[in-house]
């Protein structure tokens, strides 16, 4: 009666060793007091780290910023990606070249993207603040990265620029899988351009849209690189998201125990989000 387990044992052992063990060890740090510069630390502290988390105004601020960051990044990436995909789906001279150019940002390492944009936004070397000032969008050509009210928008701009091609690529692939005859049938049936978009393109794209938005949401919420590179979460934690707060706690505060507790909280929140979405998807599939 143990035989079936023996067959699946190699796979289970592999999953356990590569996935579960690191997770469990990582989560266990959240219940310990680990300060890198304090050799006496490392003891078990129970839920102390989590109690502190609930009282930590920086964490709650980072959580709020995470929502703004994720929603803005994903929302604009999706919108621009959809527009690009629709434009690239019709033939025009030079399409291949433009297509390649548009997909270029996706091939650039995030780290470089962050550096590039922080320079673009820096009035000493970059043109953007001067342009914004000339257009009357800013009162003075300042660096928004050092403005607590707008610092988060620097990484958001960079993130939109970097992530739009992802949506453009996936949505373009989905668009190209729509049979041309269906559009022709609708054209003969009397549907104009907008009506064809509404009654054919959108229903065809919906599954791809749902999946890519879900994936990107988790992905973007988990990605602190742009923020760490461009603002380090500053000024004064004004652009901190939860993921970058974990990084700051671990490598600037050197408080690994607390950083693990913050990370565990983020994982829990994303798990809840993922389960909700899976439930919604199941409900949608059931209805079809």
């Amino acid at each position: 009666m143990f035989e079936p387990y023996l067959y699946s044992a190699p796979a289970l052992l592999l999953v356990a060793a590569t996935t579960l063990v690191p997770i469990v060890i990582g989560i266990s740090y959240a219940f310990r007091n680990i300060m890198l510069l304090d050799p006496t630390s490392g003891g078990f502290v129970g839920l102390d780290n989590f109690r502190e988390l609930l009282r930590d105004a920086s964490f709650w601020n980072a959580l709020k910023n995470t929502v703004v960051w994720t929603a803005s990044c994903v929302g604009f990436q999706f919108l621009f990606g959809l527009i690009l995909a629709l434009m690239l789906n019709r033939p025009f001279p030079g399409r291949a070249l433009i297509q390649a150019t548009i997909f270029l940002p996706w091939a650039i390492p995030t780290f470089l993207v962050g550096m590039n944009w922080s320079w673009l936004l820096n009035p000493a070397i970059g043109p953007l603040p001067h342009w914004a000032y000339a257009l009357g969008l800013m009162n003075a050509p300042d660096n928004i990265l050092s403005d607590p009210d707008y610092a988060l928008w620097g990484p958001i701009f960079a993130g939109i620029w970097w992530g739009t091609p992802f949506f453009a690529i996936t949505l373009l692939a989905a668009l190209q899988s729509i049979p041309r005859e269906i559009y022709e049938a609708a054209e003969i049936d009397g549907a104009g351009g907008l009506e064809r978009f509404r009654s054919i393109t959108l229903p065809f794209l919906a599954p791809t849209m749902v999946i890519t938005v879900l994936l990107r949401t988790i992905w973007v919420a988990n990605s602190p690189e742009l923020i760490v590179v461009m603002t380090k979460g500053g000024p004064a934690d004004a652009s901190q998201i939860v993921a970058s707060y974990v990084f700051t706690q671990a490598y600037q505060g050197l408080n690994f125990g607390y950083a693990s507790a913050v990370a565990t909280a983020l994982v829990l929140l994303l798990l809840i989000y993922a389960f909700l979405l899976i439930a919604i998807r199941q409900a949608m599939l059931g209805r079809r």
Partner: protein
Amino acid sequence: MASIDIKNVRKDFGPVSVLKGVDLAIASGEFAVLVGPSGCGKSTLLRLIAGLEDASSGEIHIGGRRVDDLPPRDRDIAMVFQSYALYPHMNVRDNMGYSLRLKRTPQARIAEIVGRAGAKLGLEALGERKPRELSGGQRQRVAMGRAIVRNPKAFLFDEPLSNLDARMREQMRFEIRKLHRDLGATSVYVTHDQIEAMTMADRIVAMNAGIIQQVGTPLELYDDPANVFVAGFIGSPAMNFLSGEARRGETGVALSVGGKAFCTLSQAVAVPEDGRVTIGIRPERIRIGVGAGQVVEAAADLVETTGAASVVHVDLAGQAMKIFTTERLQLTQGQRIPLAIDAKDVCLFDPAGGGRLR
């Protein structure tokens, strides 16, 4: 219901000429079938009528109105596609009613029209189903229903039966014909299948290489083909072609194949100067055995039988020929058999241009 007039229509895709000047008049209520091998331009011609492609030059009139500058939706036509092109996220009823909804027809009226079309096509029980829950034949019917509810001036069919199995195809062929009889609407039907063309058409338009080869009733094309292409394309098994010589004699034109007498035509025929001709004769017009006409001898090669009939492959002076017969024959390879040829069943073609010699 309306006539369709096509005047000197050309279509070029870059340097490639797909339609090289097509003139065609389809009468109101007629069922016209465009037939030809793939790449002959028949689908392009249909798409030009529908407005899905623009003609490079020429004029298209539907019901006396010039339409080549109008978008498809203003041409008042309906089209049935090879892939059916049903809207996958709409159920059968919505698929059929979509065009009416776009015209802001009241709900009750849509339900009435769609219901009537559904009843005509036997789709009443399937109204709530999505296309993917239907069989090929049912999808085909929905596509037809979508065309019917619009009550268009003309129906266009683009190889609508090619995705069905043989039995279903036979049945739908019959149903489309019956539907046409009931509705009496002008129809243009594209197919590469000469059997569909023969069984369904009021008139066949045989096309090849962007040029209309012949227009006529199925039997006109069958009995009196204008050239080698039509003679070879229409009919199954296909017409036999033998290269032979023609010599004008006192009793008529004597034909020979490989130096042996084949038959003698009594009517006057314009024969090329060198006497070389292509002799065409349909497999079912050759009788095995000694008969009233000329008798030639051939060697049996192989017999294929379908039960109802057999095709006998024979060798006549080194050239392959088929004979279609309903007799059951036991022949061994190489066996000499006499063939009776009736001169009135023979068509002569010019071996150079492929045109009919009359």
